């Protein structure tokens, strides 16, 4: 029985360490990716990094993106568009980046981002654009 308990302890420790490492990596990547730039647009939009090896993209992320109305989504193949993917530190798929209308990255989501979260981030991006217009 002790072998089972030790195994549980080791597996638990590895899972916790992996979760911690993932959190650290995600924060690190987000820190450098936020503020990176792409093409400006009239309205905030979403850069959606995907790839054909990404199952979650098809089963979860794309239905979530389809729920967003009136938003431009720029789908990017992260394997083929490597330079752009590197600019946003895309280390996992899917990755969604909410871009301000001036082409700055406002929010970077590594992994699946549900529709309400994206809507909230887009609302923030639109709010920021309105404030900029009001003060100009």
């Amino acid at each position, binding site marked *: 029985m002790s072998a089972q308990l030790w195994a549980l302890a080791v597996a638990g420790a590895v*899972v916790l360490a992996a979760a911690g490492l993932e959190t650290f990596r995600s924060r690190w990547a987000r820190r450098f990716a936020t503020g990176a730039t792409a093409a400006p647009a009239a309205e905030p939009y979403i850069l959606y990094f995907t790839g054909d090896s990404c199952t979650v993209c098809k089963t979860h992320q794309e239905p979530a993106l389809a729920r967003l109305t009136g938003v431009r*989504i720029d789908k990017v193949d992260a394997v083929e568009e490597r330079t752009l993917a590197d600019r946003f530190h895309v280390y996992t798929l899917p990755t969604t980046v909410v871009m301000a209308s001036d082409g700055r990255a406002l929010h970077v989501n590594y992994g699946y981002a549900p529709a309400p979260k994206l809507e909230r981030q887009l609302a923030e991006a639109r709010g920021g654009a309105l404030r900029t217009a009001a003060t100009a």
Partner: protein
Amino acid sequence: MSAATHVKGSPRNPGEASDFVGIVVDHSALKVNQTGIVATVLVAFAGSALFRPLLVLIPLLAIVLLVGTFAPQFALFKQLYFKALKPRGIVKPRSVQDRPEPHNFAQGLGGVFLVVASIFLIPVPFLGLAIALLVAVLAFVNLAFGYCLGCQIFYQLERRGVLKPSTRSSETTETS
């Protein structure tokens, strides 16, 4: 305009479906496979506390996964799904436009880790069991949340050019 040739970083089309034209993968077969992995490891893990020979399930599972990776027609759990569960309507099919390679890669990786676990089972049983448990945890995460670590590793290897990206058909177009 194809996904590969659109203007980088420019806004494109509103909420859209996948524009990857590919093979359809039955995700129910994958789920049955993951359930089989989790169940087998759990039986070996818990059962071996009372009846140690049950540990043999771990090397057997390694063989099943590795054989299934290289010869999908012999993938035990998937065949159970295609030959028994699906025809009887016990598990409904769920076809998704997807590539089978990342899933096969993930399965093969699980098999390799179970081989390593099997090697450790005799000299350091707790380490062998821990590795097998980690495989089960990852299979469960995939089953419950759809997150496939093996597929992410596959993506990283493709990105670094270790694995060759698949060629897509020229009619891969955006859908609006």
